[in-house]
């Protein structure tokens, strides 16, 4: 699971009102080398919940100087874009789980794919 994906996910356990962002508990993390595509990164940044991204990167111990707030004029800041690229696309949780911040319910991540299926009474 990449952090770009994590940034989009929310807990849908019944009754939960604040299911975002999910906490990450990783047991296996991989860092891959991914071709840097600045145009793609630039396009994704406006869609991100920035604080959730920073928090997630922190939880994985891969924050590495990612600023707490979005810098102005980031389109031209290649250094910044590369950091975002790394955190969004190169860091990958292979095994672990996502935890609903409100209910504590854990969703396993296995072989890089989070399992967000709920049981019948949870949905």
């Amino acid at each position: 699971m990449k952090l770009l994906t994590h940034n989009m996910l929310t807990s849908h356990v019944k009754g939960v009102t604040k299911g975002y962002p999910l906490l990450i508990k990783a047991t296996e993390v991989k860092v891959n080398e991914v071709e840097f595509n600045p145009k793609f990164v630039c396009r994704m940044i406006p869609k991100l919940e920035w604080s959730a991204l920073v928090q997630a990167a922190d939880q994985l111990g891969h924050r590495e100087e990612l600023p707490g707030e979005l810098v102005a004029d980031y389109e031209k800041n290649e250094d910044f874009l590369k950091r975002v690229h790394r955190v969004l696309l190169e860091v990958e949780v292979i095994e672990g789980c996502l935890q609903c911040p409100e209910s504590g319910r854990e969703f396993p991540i296995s072989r890089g794919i989070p399992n967000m299926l709920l049981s019948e009474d949870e949905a």
Partner: protein
Amino acid sequence: MSSAPETEMKEADSGVRYYCTAGNGMERFLVEEVKRKLAAEDIHQIPGKVLFSSSAAIHRVCDLKAAERLFLLLKQDSPVRMPTHTSPAKAASLLQSRLLGDSRGRWISAAVTWSRLQGELASSRNAVRASATQRVGENGRGSGKQSDEGEEGRQESRKRAQEFTAAEESVDKRPRGGEQSGRRAEGLQAEDGVREPEAVCGAGSGEEVEQNVESCGKSADGLGKDAGWESVGNVSFRISCKCSGSLSRCVSTQEVSKVMGVGLSRLLGWKADVRNPNLEINVYLSDDYCLLGIPLTRLPLANRSYIKTTGLRSTIAWAMASLAQIQPGFCVVDPMCGVGTILIEAAKEQQAACFLGVDIDDGQLQNADENIAFAKLQSRVHLLKASSMVLPLPSASVDAVVCDLPFGRKFSTRENMAESLPVILSEMERVLRVGGTLVVLLSPQLSCLLKKHLPQTHAGPKRNEAAAESQTGIESGLVSSPEQQITQMQSSSSQETVTVSSLAHQTTLRVSLGAIDGLIHRYVKILD
């Protein structure tokens, strides 16, 4: 730019004339695609086929996504009309004159063009491989094909180009009139003729040619003859014929093939070879036209080199993605992604968007994972195990939802499609932002059910004027009269309220999926 003589300008302007076969319902997508990607001209659409001219590079023509197969046009003409009680001899003579005539030039020039295109295709594939192999390390997954295939591919295309160069040279020696354009003779003079194929095929070194777009024709050991020979008699061919309509009652495909075979041998000295020919000549005879062409690729364009496990037919998947009009920066979700075909086609087309595939089945997700890696799209296409009925996504967070809904009555061990459809649709609606697009493919039966929940006729949900007017900025072409919808909505304001949906129907298109048909529906979210 120097001013070129008239014959050269003419070729540059009109380019090459092609035709593609297309599945039923896909013609409109293909027409739009050739216009947009290839600046195609003289576009002519007939059921199941689109003819067009383009001067775009051949590798870009081979990148067409809505097409089944690609052909170099040999001849397009009015239908062959044969009176019912024509004798076999008369029939043969009629076919001979209508299909072959006695113009060698057309055939030779087509063969030369075909050969040139094969060379260009081979060299562009080698160039792509060369740059791709340099990047293999980054994603950790190379395409891993053997390099001797590439060697064979280049030798093969070099040999082919030489064959036709030799053919061209010998024709040049005869005085020929207008059919052979002077420019070709110029380009392939005796001295240059031998060198030119080298230049065309020389790009790249040791990289493989992708299997399904590899050049057609014989394997390297087929002809085994070098540029030493001079006669045109060493081109081998096979006829592939389809007859439909009233003509098929008068004459069989075998008769047509025989006439063509004998005729071509006599006219050009080419040899018929059913097993392993240089050229395949396709003949389509219907009540409306006769069409002759040479396939440019061994496998259909619809067989994608970048998809490992197929699901939905790639042409349909691509069409659905194109209907969604995915812009840079979009976030696109497929809530029942299966092996990921739609997302992969979409991601290949729009490189600055991200894609999320959701499925409930481990097997499907595993295949999707492999497909995504195989297509080298891991950075932009991601997967999630979840239920389409409870999407773990915030409301109004997605720009487009594209989905091929299972056609069967049961779509998982527990769920029944008809019962679950309303919930699935409401989740799709919920996660879409205002202005977001929904594109779904359903069976005709399920489409009836869809219409009950997401109205498609102008007897639609009650809505106030302001909301209806916010339906602006919707592109034309495939839109079904929004003005009509607005007028109807205004007039129906006095009627009783219906279940309000914020999804406004845009269009429904019927496509063939082989044995069955499917319906693609497009909606836009206009209210939250």
